[in-house]
């Protein structure tokens, strides 16, 4: 049943106080999201450390040794690892941040669930109708924004990994060979692909992060709306409303 009461926004009468299904899920999901986000960030710190050790080894060598056509296998391996990691690691880090922000979104949804549950219990204990606010538009949109943001971050990471494999192939060749690649050669095409994708993938990941953060903003707006409703409802109960 939906109705507008006094200065309250549109409300629904609940049979019993309780959280919605989405809020029940959010109650369980915030912790794994935080844990996953932290694990991703710790993993990226370790990978960054390995990359730094390999960079130190590589740049210990003279330019002619590093970039010459007779560069050794281990030099090329280090170059491959460094160049391919540089392509996907920033996106992996942003996915970690995105997961932490998704954890915050789930936590905000849990707060909404608690407001709904305890708001209902107060009304039930006072022997009045158990009213809840009809979910505002922002309540429908914020979980979608959060999920869309995570999807964008995952897509950008997957594309980065694919391009990192191409980078692995390209940088398996000495720099002098890459620089000498002729027009229309497979090596130059792959080099072009690596450089081009590297340019726009970070912007794509920022879109994902922006969507997750927008979800948090909308969740906070929803909390403000619910709190406004609950204060008004308690005041009405004090004034003797049904």
């Amino acid at each position, binding site marked *: 049943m939906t109705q507008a009461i006094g200065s309250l926004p549109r409300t629904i009468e609940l049979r019993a106080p309780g959280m919605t299904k989405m809020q029940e899920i959010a109650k369980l999901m915030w912790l794994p999201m935080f844990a996953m986000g932290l694990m991703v960030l710790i993993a990226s710190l370790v990978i960054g450390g390995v990359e730094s050790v390999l960079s130190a080894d590589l740049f210990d060598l003279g330019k002619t040794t590093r970039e010459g056509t007779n560069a050794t296998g281990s030099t090329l391996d280090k170059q491959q690892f460094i160049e391919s990691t540089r392509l996907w690691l920033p996106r992996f880090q942003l996915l970690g941040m995105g997961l932490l922000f998704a954890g915050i979104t789930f936590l905000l949804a849990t707060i909404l669930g608690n407001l709904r549950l305890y708001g209902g219990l107060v009304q039930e204990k006072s022997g009045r109708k158990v009213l809840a606010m009809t979910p505002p538009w922002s309540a429908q949109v914020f979980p979608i924004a959060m999920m869309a943001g995570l999807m964008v971050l995952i897509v950008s990471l997957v594309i980065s990994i694919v391009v990192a494999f191409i980078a692995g192939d390209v940088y398996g060749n000495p720099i002098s060979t*890459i*620089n*000498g*690649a*002729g*027009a229309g050669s497979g090596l*130059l*095409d792959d*080099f*072009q692909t690596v*450089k*081009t*994708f*590297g*340019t*726009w993938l*970070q*912007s*794509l990941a*920022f*879109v994902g*992060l*922006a969507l997750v*953060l*927008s979800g*948090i*903003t909308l969740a*906070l*707006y929803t*909390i*403000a709306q619910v*709190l*406004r409703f*609950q*204060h*008004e409802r*308690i*005041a*009405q109960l*004090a*004034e003797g409303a049904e």
Partner: protein
Amino acid sequence: MTTTSEMLFGGRAVLAKPEPTTMQKLARFMWVPMLLMGLMVIAASVGISIANAAATSDYFGLPQAVRGAADAPASVIDDRQFIESTNVWLPGFQLLGIGLILAAITFSLANILGVFRAGGVRVQQAFGHEAETLTPPITARLFPMLMMMGLMILILNLVISAIIGGLAWDVYGHSVAEINAATEGSDLLGDLSTVNTFKTWLAPLPFIGIATILVGISFAVHTTLQVIRFQGQRMRELAFAGAEEGGAR
């Protein structure tokens, strides 16, 4: 009336009307433009990245011998100019977008504080009691300033990046061979040095802006916690006063 409470950092004040402060009223409307501006900046940066990717594709589609030649075609130099200057200012622009969205979160939290203030007064008046509110703790005064300071740092960073981007445009208007052959003391080498020097410290500067806004958000959350604690305490006082009145009758 202002009395102190051992549980809370702020004192108490009596309010006559259930309404938020001017800043909180402003916050109720300001989160929307901030969020929209942030999303627009991020969308614009995607568009610019795609243009940059097209220039990058054209540039790196050519062999190194053509790209690095002293007589490189004008279109190759144009591509390099665009790529190098955009790479200087685009990261700062993207982080400004994220900063604006974080500012929207700060305004949303200020809006919640306004709801607590107005709603708390409304409930106390409905119970027929004097409406008390928490005098703003220090964190409530600091968080809007931190948010504004963070945005100022991000804007300043973008302005400096745009100037250095212009300088990079001049430098990379020369062929790679010319840049590599620039002699000590020449303007070209001086400009190249300026571009590379500024790029080094312009990378961490916007993160200071983002960190400042995030500190502001944590202060706003702390203020909310103080207000919730105060309201819980006030509800217990009202319930106790109600029970005493009932007992006296």
